């Protein structure tokens, strides 16, 4: 079996580019076409576990077509013979106002009708509270301060704990002005 036959790699690269264009353009027909039309097709998304072509297709149709742009890097293609391949990428995209780092793996198989994705998995790498909150206010924590800031937030949480445990009734509003 030939690993990474250049001709096969070129084929898969073209399909990967086709898939990315369809994803960013929310071309649902194309996306559905690129997935294996089988109840055994699988797609684990960031938040959804989809079993079978019908579930995958339904998810695509219900998905709001916003913020789909992503920056792809570290593309990896490995082909096995002329009918099996894996495609892996890392990507960055905005999600809920935060720039997230994610990864995607696809398994491609060539059927008589052409190459199809038979299994895919997309995930975001976990992000800390500090990173998420900083991103929401457009703040970049310099690397040399990150650990200090993280500790500071942790210490603040310890300090705040007894205060937050103190229950305030709904009638209590902030006191700004002081009278005798």
């Amino acid at each position, binding site marked *: 079996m030939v690993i990474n036959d250049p001709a096969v790699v070129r084929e898969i690269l073209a399909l990967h580019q086709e898939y990315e264009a369809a994803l960013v353009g929310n071309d649902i027909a194309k996306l559905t076409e690129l997935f294996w039309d089988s109840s055994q097709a699988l797609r684990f998304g960031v938040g959804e576990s989809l079993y079978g072509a019908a579930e995958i297709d339904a998810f695509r149709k219900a998905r709001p077509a916003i913020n789909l742009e992503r920056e792809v890097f570290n593309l990896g293609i490995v082909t096995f013979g002329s009918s099996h391949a894996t495609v892996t990428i890392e990507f960055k995209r905005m999600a809920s106002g935060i720039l997230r780092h994610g990864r995607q793996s696809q398994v491609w198989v060539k059927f008589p009708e052409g190459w199809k994705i038979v299994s895919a998995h997309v995930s975001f790498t976990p992000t800390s509270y500090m990173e998420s909150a900083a991103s929401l*206010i457009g*703040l970049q924590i310099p690397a040399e301060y990150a650990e200090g800031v993280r500790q500071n937030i942790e210490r603040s949480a310890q300090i*705040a704990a007894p205060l*937050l445990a*103190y229950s305030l009734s709904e009638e*209590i509003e902030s*006191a700004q*002005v002081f*009278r005798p």
Partner: protein
Amino acid sequence: MLATLEAIQRHDAQLNCFTKVLETEALAEADAIDARIAAGEDVGPLAGVPFAVKNLFDIAGVTTIAGSKIHATSPPAQQDAAVVQRLKAAGANLVGALNMDEYAYGFTTENTHYGPTRNPHDLDRVAGGSSGGSAAAVAAGMLPLTLGSDTNGSIRVPAALCGIYGLKPTYGRISRAGAYLFAESFDHVGPFARSVRDIAVAFDVLHGPDPRDPVASDRPAEPVSPQLERGAEGLRIAVADGYFSHGGMPEVFEAVQKAAQALDANEAVTIPDVEKARAAAYIITACEGGNLHLEDLRTRPQDFDPVVVERFLAGTLLPASWHSHAQRFRRVFQAKLREVFRHVDVILAPTTPCPAIRIGQPTITIDGKEVPSRPNMGYYTQPLSFIGLPVLSVPIFAPGSLPVGVQLIGAPYNEALLLRVARQLERMGVASAPIKVPSPAAEAVR
């Protein structure tokens, strides 16, 4: 004025109080005041009194740096801060601007950009902060009067560590217009001096409504100077127990006892929920301080003082729920204190948990436990500014040791009572603020 400038010349190389000396302006103003006096004019209750201000107050023609490098390149202020205007209008003569922790976020005035301010009583020790330059300049006798600001203790702490009087008035009672803010919910401004009368005269000139400050109280000014000699007679004075009788070194409690005995204050009073008040003050300070500097934290975090930048960065990220909860808790704590003040007029408590620490000293040992020194300097002050209570720190000296402070705490707008009690302590010789000229020998040894 020449004598003042000479004293600054002589001592400030050792103490590092001043970030700006307005020599030419002060000499010209002195001549102008002399001329007005010669012409028979009334130049005011502070005629010719030299004063200086923490460098977060606007001085027309001078850049307000607020202890930072970032603001050092800002254009000069267009007009004087309200408090500078008021002191000048009363005849006082502005001599310069004084060192502080960057953006007032500290209790020790160990400023990385401008160097630490040293304590005149021991040059190896901090002056306290954040208004360290303001306190040390008065303690060393360079000036009789300075101004500082107090968010969580920044007037009271350095006053205590330098052995002088420092008044944090009721929130909103002295205008903050033209003062660079830190955490607006608690920012106060007030005077430092070596006598109760000087504090009283300054307070009388400084306090009262000001449309330029959105949180200034409308309450008319009530002169306290005429009431000073009434003493503590008839006042209910008690010592704060619980939180305020733990967590400090023995000498600070001895100072409180000394003051209490002199005043025949045998009662103790418990202020409830003080730990929560301190926590809430901490959260609000972090959030408001961080937000105030958000733009610079985004674009030039490397230009902040490294000792404060991580706290500011963290402050921008704390949950809004914490801030709201802390703000609402102020109402609860205020109601509890109002109840306390139905039974007592003036409360005594230590100002700091210990005398001045050494410059660079990271920890202090309290009750056999090692705790971080810098945040703990505000242990007793922070819960009180939290709800804007007026507090005067009075200096107490034990023979052969460093000074400590006792806080006289009153209900809102009761500055007069605090000053009367302080005057009584001063008359009895319990409170005193002797000038401490730093000795050149100490410099040589160091």
